[in-house]
């Protein structure tokens, strides 16, 4: 089973990866947005967002979705950071996973935007990547993991 970082630990991924080519997703599989929209029962579902796919489509089901996988096809495409923050600010509390080609140096940013799971392209690099989560111990801005900006705390 592939590995990922979840809540700060390396664990096994229990979800089946996305299958673009299939007409529909099985219940233990991450669905593309299109496949997900066809699901009759969205309870406990898992859905992938790609850049350009607005999280607005998920708003009505935030309390039912178990996993949102935000895919970063290229690490320099930062749209996923805003998607994550948007979902969390609207109350989504399920797993929010970053996947694709982000790099470990982005982990603190991703975490602060609300991601709690990270699936790196190379899962041998996970151990090293864990240390990057500790790059910063203080931040200026409000974020999902620290709702108060520094100026309200100093």
């Amino acid at each position: 089973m592939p590995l990922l970082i979840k809540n700060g630990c390396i664990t096994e991924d229990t979800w089946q990866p996305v299958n673009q080519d299939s007409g529909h997703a099985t219940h233990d599989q991450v669905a593309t947005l299109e496949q997900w929209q066809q699901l009759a029962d969205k309870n406990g579902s898992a859905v992938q967002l790609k850049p350009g796919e607005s999280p607005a489509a998920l708003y009505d089901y935030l309390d039912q979705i178990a996993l949102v996988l935000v895919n970063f096809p290229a690490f320099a495409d930062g749209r996923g950071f805003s998607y994550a923050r948007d979902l969390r600010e609207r109350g989504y509390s399920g797993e929010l996973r970053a996947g694709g080609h982000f790099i470990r140096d982005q982990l603190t940013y991703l975490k602060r935007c609300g991601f709690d799971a990270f699936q790196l392209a190379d899962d041998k690099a996970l151990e090293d990547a864990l240390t990057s989560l500790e790059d910063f111990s203080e931040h200026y801005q409000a974020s999902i993991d620290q709702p108060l900006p520094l100026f309200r705390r100093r």
Partner: protein
Amino acid sequence: MYVYDQYDQKIVDERVSQFRDQTNRFLEGKITEAEFLPLRLQNGLYLQRQAPMLRIAVPYGLLNSLQLRKLADISRKYDKGYAHISTRQNVQLNWPALAEVPDILEELAAVEMHAIQTSGNCIRNTTTDQFAGVACDELEDPRPYCEIIRQWSTLHPEFAFLPRKFKIAVCGTEQDRAAIHHHDIGIELLANAQGEVGLKIIAGGGQGRTPAIGSVICEWLDKKHMLTYLEAILRVYNQHGRRDNKYKARIKILVKAMGVDAFRDAVAAEWTAIKDGPTTLTNEEILRARAFFKLPDYEILDGEVASAQLTEQTVQNPIFGNWIKRNTENHRTPGYRIVTISLKATGFAPGDISAEQLELLADLSDTYSFGEARSTHQQNLVLADVPTACLLEFWERLQAAGLATPNIGYLTDIICCPGGDYCALANAKSLPVAEAIQSRFEDLDYVYDLGPLELNISGCMNACGHHHIGHIGVLGVDKKGQEFYQVCLGGSQAKDASIGKILGPSFQQADMPDVIDTILSTYVALRQEEETFLDTYRRVGIEPFKERVYASAN
């Protein structure tokens, strides 16, 4: 000026360690070139033609004497003994070694400096009026707001990978000296009908390939909403700005594509979700930031006595008098003047300053100007609080160091990017053009007779030399591997913001002094009474200039 507390220091120190680790991993081959690229750029490090270039942040252009000395030190130890003031009020080193950059950053952190986000597709150094806090025409000091923005934008988790770079400028005067209409976001401190000072928000201005003047997105905003409103604008941009073509990725293109009204609506929708949330500024925070910029301990001086004495000195020493006239400005406090130190002596790259000169300015600022200095986007330095009675000795010391060029705001005070001599992106060299023009117009009387004139030169479309907003702009272009120069006229960075119009086909480097000469003599022939170059241009249009320039070229 702002002083770090333990939080600020920790963030900067942790950033240095992070970058040290990233650099080591890169040098060990554990990170690819492509992955290292944004990491080093977000720490101000470019790989240029000759060597890396390190851009050090000077938040809104403010420096203290300790920092000036540290910069001098660093430029000697790690570079060739000089530094360069950029058009974003930052300081650049042209020759550091990659492996030593973490050490440089560590030395900078020791004097509360860093290179965070001086490059890359993120929020860059916020800039402002170089006369902030001392200008006679200022409504309110913009620097506290710049500092609040600096902190908010530093390592902002959501906006580190934007479609493109993002620049913010703030000004507190009507007569905008911060070019706020030419920024991704421009902010003007402005009173509403009730006299309460708030913020006017302008977005979508910018230079580069498709220059644009910003549009007003919000006529007046309560200051407490500054950060949530900026965040809303950035969210719209981060999600909808184009990422398929880097020349169409700036916010100005998005604002044009959506239309200002639709853009404003999208911002309002994002804003509704976060307005009044925890990022809303507290009164205490605004007061805390303002406390760092309170007036220094000015002596109570008799302004009239001081100016009478100065007049006498200038009569006795006309060279000094000329410098006073060209390089100093009225100060808000009687008995003081604002001094601009020109880094535009002929024969030196515009904006370059040697380690010795940096140290001299550190000494001068300690002796005469409360230990502070400012960099300007025109690539000069300002000592803002010099007692009028000390100006003569001050000037004598500048003169001995080659820093008394009396040309602020005139033709030879050229804004010029490093261009093809250093920059890997350049289409053409810019420094030799600046020097050729400065050498041609050495006759100061002629230069003064021309009146205020801004001549700006960029080595490529990225417009670091602000060519679109120069009264005369020069742009280096590449024509089949040959360097050519396009000229535009009529740009303005001031309140009456405008973008220069292209004169016509481009010229060879050797012809540039003649071309400028023809443009200037055309102006002199056509001007009426007290008209400035820009006035005349706006009255007669580009045609007469075109005719003469291309007639004499044939």
